[in-house]
């Protein structure tokens, strides 16, 4: 039953199993796991079974697209027509999306069956999934630990074998970090490759839809269905279509892997460092070479991010005013009071803090000191990477300084929480793609992921490296008890 997307798509096509059978079994598992993991916000049993029935009919007809009948889940930040879309917030607790996000349409057109919407940090702001209005998601490897965030529900669902794949979005590490914390694969493509249309906006210059699955091959299949130009997103790139699975089988001889000094220094847990070192040894065994590189400004990516992302968020979230959609306070006086009470009730504290930070850095007299400064340092960080890629093809290191932490450990200290994203944020600031793949466990038995980063549009290369690693190792086959 625990088939990958590729295996399941093939078995459905060969009629070894029907989509209704698979979908029913996964729905049963999802419902059974809900009390333990809280991975879902909405489960759509009736809708999923109707889609599965239609998929089975299509498979009989013989004109079925590549992922016909494969059940998946969407992060609840992506709009799904006719289905509740909450973004993890009380603000949208009863919001039914009037249309599909572009990537949702892409996966529908590829034939997938949508089983439900996964839990997440409110408006994708968080690294632990403790900020959801619908309660925290728990890590399937140990329910006392966080699954990472913000796409923690999608990651936990794939790790616990509730779905073979799920979507996520990544603004500062929200796909790569939870993939690492739950022992699965997560790909954040190049900014502009997947349209943001229908993605509830957090930080528009950083938000990137992507995917979770257990194998690199499955990530490639998901990306094939999600990528593509969309005129409805002005930042969607008009490029020739790619087959992201085209290079999976390529040997790695001659590939140069950059190891940034800044990713291998103090502050990284020794278990994480050891797992990364042994992953690099495996890549060398596969024919790659490693070279030291320097990214002197990468340590500034966290402060840069906490200016730029809140600034964009404060603007994006101004739309939640209790007028056109979402929560409206019950008792209020005038219009101003209605706005203030609605937003006080509808947003959780992390979201409020980020709106306030963003409002401050954009306010009169502070713009140059904060926002302009952050954009200049963003340039310095991008220049570091451009220089490094003259010496190497890809850059590798840990996804996060530690494996998953305990629920509650960092909940009252925003800065400690933010520092967890120190290795992933640069990918959002530069727009470059990254994939996290499992490569070991720490002393507590919690998964560790290695981050493979490349220059823009290097997805096929990253997937090639990840796939070759997975052909030679079995970390991706480990299942939580």
């Amino acid at each position, binding site marked *: 039953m625990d088939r990958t997307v590729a295996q399941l798509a093939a078995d459905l096509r060969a009629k070894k199993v029907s989509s209704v059978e698979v979908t029913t079994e996964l729905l049963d598992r999802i419902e059974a796991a809900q009390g333990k993991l809280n991975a879902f916000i909405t489960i759509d049993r009736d809708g999923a079974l109707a889609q599965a029935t239609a998929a089975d009919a299509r498979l009989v007809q013989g004109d079925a697209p590549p992922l016909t009948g494969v059940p998946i889940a969407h992060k609840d930040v992506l709009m799904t027509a006719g289905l509740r879309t909450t973004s993890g917030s009380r603000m949208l607790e009863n919001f039914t999306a009037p249309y599909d996000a572009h990537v949702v349409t892409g996966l529908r057109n590829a034939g997938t069956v949508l089983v439900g919407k996964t839990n997440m940090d409110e408006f994708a702001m968080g690294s632990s999934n403790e900020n959801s209005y619908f309660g925290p998601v728990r890590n399937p490897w140990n329910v006392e630990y966080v699954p990472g965030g913000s796409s923690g529900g999608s990651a936990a669902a794939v790790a616990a074998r509730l779905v073979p794949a799920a979507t996520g979005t990544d603004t500062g590490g929200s796909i790569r970090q939870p993939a690492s914390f739950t022992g699965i694969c997560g790909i954040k493509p190049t900014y502009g490759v997947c349209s943001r249309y229908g993605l509830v906006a957090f930080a528009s210059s950083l938000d990137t839809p992507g995917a979770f699955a257990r194998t690199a091959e499955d990530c490639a299949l998901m990306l094939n269905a999600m990528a593509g130009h969309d*005129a409805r997103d002005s930042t969607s790139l008009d490029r020739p279509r790619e087959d992201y699975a085209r290079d999976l089988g390529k040997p790695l001889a001659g590939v140069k892997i950059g190891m940034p000094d800044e990713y291998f220094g103090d502050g990284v847990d020794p278990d994480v460092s050891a797992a990364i070192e042994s992953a690099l040894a495996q890549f060398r065994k596969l024919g790659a070479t490693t070279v030291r590189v320097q990214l002197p400004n990468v340590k500034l990516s966290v402060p840069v991010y*906490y200016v730029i992302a809140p600034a964009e968020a404060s603007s994006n979230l101004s739309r939640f005013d209790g007028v056109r959609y979402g929560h409206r306070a019950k008792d209020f006086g005038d219009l101003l009071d209605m706005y203030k009470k609605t937003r006080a009730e509808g947003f959780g504290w992390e979201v409020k803090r980020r709106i306030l930070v963003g409002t401050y850095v954009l306010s009169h007299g502070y713009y140059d000191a904060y926002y302009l400064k952050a954009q200049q*340092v963003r340039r310095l960080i991008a220049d570091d990477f451009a220089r490094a890629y003259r010496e190497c093809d890809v850059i590798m290191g840990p996804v996060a300084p530690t494996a998953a932490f305990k629920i509650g450990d960092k909940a009252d200290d925003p800065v400690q929480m933010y520092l967890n994203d120190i290795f992933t944020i640069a990918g959002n600031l530069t727009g470059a793609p990254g994939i996290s793949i499992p490569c070991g466990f720490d002393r507590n038995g919690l998964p560790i992921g290695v981050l493979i980063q490349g220059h823009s549009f290097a997805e096929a290369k990253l997937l090639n490296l990840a796939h070759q690693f997975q052909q030679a190792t079995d970390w991706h086959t480990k299942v939580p008890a």
Partner: protein
Amino acid sequence: MALTLDDVRRIAHLARIDIDAAQADDVHRKLSAIFGLIDELNAVDTTGIAPMAHAQDVTLSLREDKITEADQHALFQSVAPAVEDSLYLVPRVIE
């Protein structure tokens, strides 16, 4: 630049978020810690560095000035808190 409690009240007003006196101290403490992190940027010399607003160097494309969307206002207003005669209702602002 230390953030004051008055700054917190001012930006909460600008952001249209009610924060009562009991909450303001905790918000002030946490925002001050966040600005402590952000202030690390002050140590960097950025003289002459062109700001980077966006990861991709793309220009906005133009399209023909013609209607491409169907009228779906009833669907879009079906999720609104208060609607009458296709208008969004809010408290009276003009007497």
